[in-house]
C-alpha cells in the first residue's frame, strides 16, 4: 500500500470529539450503548477525520462485524442476482452489509472464496445450493458462525436450508406437457456435473415420464452452458434428428428463450408444432409474445427468508431448519397440445 499520510487513529477521533478512546470505540461499535449527543459528536469527528475503524482490530475486539457473506455461482444469472438483491435489502434494513463472492461453478473456487470471506470476518454466511465440498462445511463449523443454504433444500437434515424442491417442480412441468398429450420429449439443460439444480430438474422430468412409460433417450438430453446461444444450438440439434420432439423442456428461461428464437428463425411455429417451457419466470418471460410457460420461483421471497433465517440465528432465536417455499407453474402461450400426426 502506498500509504499517503498516516491514517487517523481512534485517539484522534476521541480527541476531536472530547471523549475518552473507550467511549469513542463504544460509540463506533455499539452505537446503541452511548447517549445520542455523544454518538453524534463521535460520528461527526470520525467523518471529519476520515476515520475508518480498522475492521480487523474491531472484529478482534467485538467478534461482530455486521457483515454477512454470500457465495453464489455467478452474478451472470438474473435469478441468482434477484435472490441476492432481496437478501441485501433485508440485511441492510437490519444494519448488516452483504459481501458477495462468486465461484463460477467451480467447487475448488468455492472453497477458496469462502475461506477468504471467513478470514475477512463475517457474522454469517449464505451458500447457494446444497452440494458443497465437505471441506467447506468443515471450515464453517470451525468458525461456528450461522449459515444457511438457499435455493435448494437439504434432504440430509444436516444443514439449515430455505428453498424449493426442484425435482418436484420439474415433474410438474413434465406432467403439464404429458397432460396436453405430448409423448416425444427433449430437454435442454445446464451442465449437470457441478450443478445439482440442473441434475434435480433432469431427474424430475425423467421420473414424470417414466411414470407414464415414456422414454427420454440420451440424444434428446442436451447439456449446455446457460446462455441464449446455447438454447438456439440445442434446439437446432434436436430438430435435425430423425424424430424431432414435440415438447422441449428447458431447465431455465434463458435457454427456453434461445430455443424459441431458433424456432422463429427456422420457421417452426411455437406452440403449434413444438411446445417449449422454461424455469425461473424471469421478468422477460411474461412479456414475450407468446408469453413463456415456465415455473415461477419466488426469488425475492427466498432472499428475504434467507436473511430472516440468519438474523434469527444471530439473535439466538429458533429457526425452521428446512423451510420449503411453494412454486407455481405459469401456463402461458408457448405450450399447447402436440400437432396431429
Amino acid at each position, binding site marked *: 500500500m*502506498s500509504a499517503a499520510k498516516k*491514517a487517523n487513529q481512534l485517539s484522534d477521533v476521541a480527541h476531536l470529539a472530547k471523549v475518552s478512546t473507550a467511549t469513542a470505540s463504544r460509540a463506533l461499535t455499539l452505537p446503541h450503548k452511548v447517549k445520542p449527543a455523544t454518538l453524534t459528536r463521535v460520528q461527526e469527528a470520525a467523518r471529519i477525520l476520515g476515520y475508518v475503524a480498522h*475492521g480487523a482490530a474491531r472484529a478482534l475486539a467485538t467478534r461482530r462485524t455486521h457483515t454477512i457473506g454470500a457465495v453464489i455461482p455467478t452474478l451472470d444469472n438474473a435469478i441468482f442476482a434477484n435472490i441476492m438483491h432481496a437478501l441485501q435489502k433485508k440485511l441492510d434494513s437490519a444494519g448488516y452489509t452483504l459481501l*458477495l463472492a462468486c465461484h463460477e461453478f467451480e467447487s475448488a473456487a468455492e472453497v477458496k472464496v469462502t475461506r477468504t470471506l471467513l*478470514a475477512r470476518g463475517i457474522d454469517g454466511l449464505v451458500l447457494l445450493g446444497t452440494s458443497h465440498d465437505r471441506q467447506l462445511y468443515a471450515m464453517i463449523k470451525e468458525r461456528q458462525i450461522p449459515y444457511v443454504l438457499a435455493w435448494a433444500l437439504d434432504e440430509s437434515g444436516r444443514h439449515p436450508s430455505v428453498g424449493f424442491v426442484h425435482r418436484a417442480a420439474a415433474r410438474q412441468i413434465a406432467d403439464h406437457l404429458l397432460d396436453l398429450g405430448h409423448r416425444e420429449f427433449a430437454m435442454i439443460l445446464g451442465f449437470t456435473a457441478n450443478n445439482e439444480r440442473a441434475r434435480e430438474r433432469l431427474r424430475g422430468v425423467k421420473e414424470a415420464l417414466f411414470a407414464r412409460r415414456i422414454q427420454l433417450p440420451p440424444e434428446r438430453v442436451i447439456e449446455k452452458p446457460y446462455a*441464449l446461444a446455447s438454447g438456439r444450438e440445442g434446439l437446432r440439434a434436436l430438430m435435425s434428428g430423425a424424430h424431432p420432439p414435440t415438447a422441449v423442456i428447458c431447465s431455465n428461461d434463458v435457454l427456453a428463450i*434461445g430455443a424459441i428464437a431458433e424456432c422463429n428463425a427456422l420457421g417452426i411455429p411455437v406452440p403449434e408444432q413444438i411446445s417449449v417451457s422454461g424455469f425461473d419466470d424471469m421478468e422477460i418471460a411474461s412479456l414475450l409474445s407468446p408469453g413463456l410457460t415456465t415455473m415461477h420461483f419466488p426469488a425475492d421471497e427466498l432472499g428475504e427468508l434467507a436473511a430472516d433465517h440468519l438474523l434469527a440465528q444471530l439473535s439466538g432465536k429458533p429457526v425452521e431448519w428446512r423451510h420449503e417455499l411453494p412454486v407455481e407453474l405459469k401456463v402461458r402461450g408457448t405450450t399447447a397440445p402436440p400437432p396431429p400426426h
Partner: protein
Amino acid sequence: MTKPAAKLADVARLAGVSTATVSRALSQPHLVGAATLNRVEAAAQRLHYVPHGTARALRSRRTHTVGAVIPALGNALYAKTTHALQKALEADGYTLLLACHEFDLKTELKVMRSLIERGVDALVLVGTEHDLELFDLLGSLGIPYVLTWALDRTGRHPCVGFDNRLAARRVADYLVDIGHRDIAMVAGVTAGNDRARERLAGAREALAARGIALPTQRVLERPYMIAAGREATRTLLKLVPRPTAVICGNDVLAMGAVMECHAQSVAVPAAVSVTGFDDMEAASILTPALTTVRVPMHEIGYAAARQILIRLKGGTGVPVTELAVDLIVRGTTAPPGRPR
C-alpha cells in the same frame, strides 16, 4: 459447540515446522520452499485452519482481496465485467469481494467503508460520480482504486471505460442521418448515475447540433427494467406528433420499448425506430434484432484488473484507459415512414 478452531501452532506441529514458517507459508507463499509450502498447506487443509484474517491483516496489512462496488446486482452487464475482473485477479492470486449500492451514493460510501474495514487491498468502482467523502477516504488511506464504465474528465481519478456521451451522440447522429426529426428518449435515472446522464447529454448535443430539439415531454427517465421501458413507450406513443424514433438508455429499456410497440401493433422499424445501448446477448436475438451500441463489458473488467494489479505492485499505471464502442445497426431502425 464443537471443538475449538485449529490454531497456527496445531498446523505447525502437524507439518513439522515452526509457527513462524507456517505463518510465512500462508501469508507469503513465495518466500518458502515448495516442499515446505506443500506440507503446510496439506496440514492447514487437514485441520481446516482458516487464518484469522483480522489478525493477519493487522500484521501484514495485505489481504490479497480486492473489493468491487457495483450499482446493481440484477444488471447483466456489470455481471460480465465483474466476471472478467474476477478471472484476471484470480490469475494473480487475488480474490474478489463484491458489494452493491443500488444506485444510492450514500449506500455506496457505507458498503465501501465496510469493504475497507474487512480489509481489501484495492477497490474497483463503477462510474465517476461518487460521494465526495469516498474519494477523501480513499486518498487518506492510500488505497489503490480505479473507476470503470466511464471516463473521468477531471483527470484526478484513474479510470477504465468509454465515452458514454460520444457513444450516445453517434446513435443520435445515425438516426438523424437516416431522416428522423421527431426523436424521443427513454433514459436511465440520471440522479447519481453519470453514465445515464452522459448518454442523455450526448443525444441532446447531437440533436442540437443538427437544429433538432429534444423537448422535456420527449425525455423520460426510468429504472433499467423491461416493464419501465414498456410503460415509458406507452406514454411516448400518445404524443402528437408521435416520435418516429426512440433512443433508449440501455437494451433492457429498448426491449421494453419494442415489446410495447408490438403490443400496440406499431410496426418496428416501419413506424417507429428503437435503439438500445450495451449490446446484451438478448439484443441480437429479438425479432427484429436490436440496433444498439456495443460496449466492451469484458474488456473493462480485464483492463481494470490490470490497472489495479500494476498499482498493487507499486507501479503508477495509466491514468485513463479509453476503450472503443461500436454502433451495431440491426433491424429495429430504418428511415421514418411517410407522415400520416
